[in-house]
């Protein structure tokens, strides 16, 4: 589904990604871990098409076609979803209005008519139940005055509505208490199918108890320096990153 080859990216002259190689197939869950400043969030932004990054080399293929030249919204229309580490506030725009616009713009890109209001409302209700979201949430201004947990839950709510092929969850666990973490993880697991894939970016092993990855990658200094299965995450939890860094620098 997603194939990244030798991806190098920089921002304002600083090299952040120095040669990423990553292949994600449908039905898989990949975890990307790594110390602060290793390039995790940059990688997710670059996949989503954020234009302030300069791509110096490499390629990103999605479902067999090169997406490097596509705008962020075109990538979204193709089924790439990024759950933000810090979701953005838009005052005066209700959650429901934002979702309606988002969903209908995606449908328009696929040549579909806007979703009838009744169907949309029904779908929202179903997904709200999945994420244990209370009534009244839909009419609040997007992310304004939301708690950390509400913001993250809202991200996963949108993901549930848009039904992406590839979901990238950037530090979705940060700012969540244990109950909220379980609800969010539960939602993500229920949305998983053999046709979609998930990339989980996290600092901590904790989230991976709930969203169990097929593969774990360690990002350091803009490169994936080690890949393994979920046991690797446990090892990191126990021993930290130092031994991997030493191993990587020794190469």
């Amino acid at each position, binding site marked *: 589904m997603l194939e990244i080859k030798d991806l190098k990216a920089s921002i304002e002259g600083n090299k952040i990604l120095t040669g990423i190689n990553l292949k994600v197939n449908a039905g898989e869950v990949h975890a990307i871990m790594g110390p602060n400043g290793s390039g995790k969030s940059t990688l997710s932004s670059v996949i*989503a*098409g*954020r*234009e*302030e990054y300069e791509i110096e080399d490499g390629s990103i293929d999605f479902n067999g076609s090169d997406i490097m030249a596509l*705008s*962020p*919204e075109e990538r*979204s*229309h193709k089924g790439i*979803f*990024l759950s*933000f580490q810090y*979701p*953005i506030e*838009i*005052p*005066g*725009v209700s959650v429901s*209005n*934002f979702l309606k*616009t*988002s*969903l209908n*713009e*995606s449908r328009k*890109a696929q040549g579909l008519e806007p979703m009838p209001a009744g169907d949309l409302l029904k779908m929202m209700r179903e997904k709200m139940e999945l994420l244990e979201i209370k009534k009244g949430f839909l009419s609040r*201004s*997007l992310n304004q005055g939301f708690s950390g947990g509400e913001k993250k839950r809202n991200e996963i709510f*949108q993901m549930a509505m*848009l039904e992406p092929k590839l979901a990238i969850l950037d530090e979705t666990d940060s700012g969540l208490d244990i109950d909220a973490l379980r609800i969010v993880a539960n939602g993500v697991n229920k949305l998983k199918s053999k046709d979609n894939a998930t990339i989980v970016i996290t600092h901590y092993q904790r989230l991976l108890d709930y969203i169990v990855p097929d593969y774990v990658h360690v990002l350091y200094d803009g490169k994936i320096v080690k890949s393994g299965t979920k046991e690797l995450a446990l090892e990191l939890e126990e021993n930290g990153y130092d031994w991997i860094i030493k191993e990587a620098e020794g190469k």
Partner: protein
Amino acid sequence: MTEEDKILEEVTGAEYKYGFTTDVESDTIPKGLNEDVIRLISKKKEEPQWLLEHRLKAFESWKKMEEPDWANIKYKKPNYQDIIYYAAPKQKKELKSLDELDPEMKKTFDKLGISLDEQKKLAGVAVDFVMDSVSVATSFKDKLGELGIIFCSISEAVKEHPELVKKYLGTVVPTTDNFFSALNSAVFTDGSFCYIPKGVRCPMELSTYFRINQAGTGQFERTLVIADEGSYVSYLEGCTAPMRDENQLHAAVVELIAMNDAEIKYSTVQNWYPGDANGVGGVFNFVTKRGLCHKRSKISWTQVETGSAVTWKYPSCILKGDDSIGEFYSVAVTNNYQQADTGTKMIHLGKNSKSTIISKGICAGKSEGSYRGLVKIQKSAENARNFSQCDSLLMGDKCGSHTFPYIEVKNKSAKIEHEATTSKIGEDQIFYCNQRGIGTEEAIALIVNGYCKDVLNQLPMEFAVEAQKLLAISLEGSVG
């Protein structure tokens, strides 16, 4: 160049949609202003003597006045001898129905999206249409007449209802009030008149469209709305003009009178030609709007200001009666080289009088937007209340936004609250929307409409939709 700048460049190039001219024969008088011109206007309009005297008196005061320069705007002062003060589309007199309209004029309606018939059927909106100096069409008059509501051009009102016009004209905005209102009082050519009788709730929106067509003309319309005791009316005006290299002058006066227990809702969607991307041309919009509130009455001004090269406008309320209410809801957009100095005055005289001010400024391009507001609590205004909120939204870093709030309190029981914020549409917000499949233009429209929601909610439904579209067009892409 950052992404922000690129988007900004792209977007500030949005074209003005109403820049066409209508090719109808026009009856104009030579340009320039003197007593003879005023006499000629009065004669062409077959006016009674008292009105001519009213005009001449205003002209005498105007000659002694200086053009104000305290506003935060810079423009080349018009040469008042270089303006045509009367231009009327020539057409058959006394239209029985809109079908008799000049076909060119009908095309104008269509281009403006007014479609009088449509509106009649769908929205039940009565429309008065003023092109250059005269009113050319008023719809729905008969139906309103059954309720005793008078809705017609002010020229017609002078002929048909002279007692009402004479009683109220100039009572809220005296001829000597300011430079532009004095000018208007001397040379006004048309505008709308509306009277709602006691206890009548006007069953439909009343609407006037103003259009400057003829080159070299100024538009000086005069609007007078009187809501008698216990009545209610919702009134809307829209304005457009052709694209011209020269600056055209628009100096209107609007007077509202709300008698005891009456309510007037006055909404404006102002979209005069703003000039081109380099700041050439555009309308100078120097307008005096004021309402007088008697006991327990309410006047609510709502304005969406997207057009004009220069705007100088402060719709105000004199809260004379006890328990009266004044409201001002404003969205003012400036882009490219536009300048706006707008706001309101709430003058509290009555006990327990209340006022609310919500002002939302949006500045893009190299424009300058200012909010200027006065809240004045007089000694007699026991327990007066005011709440003001003035927000500014900036797009890019070449525009300027300013706030000049003035507060004068002479009664200690007053409670006044003032809140102000300044924010920017950020790349982060745009990227967030983009990531959810919403393109940049759409994203801006969404964010701006969200920001203006409190004001747009005050507009009648069908105009709120129109205003939303207008905001999107005015700001196409102008984000950072």
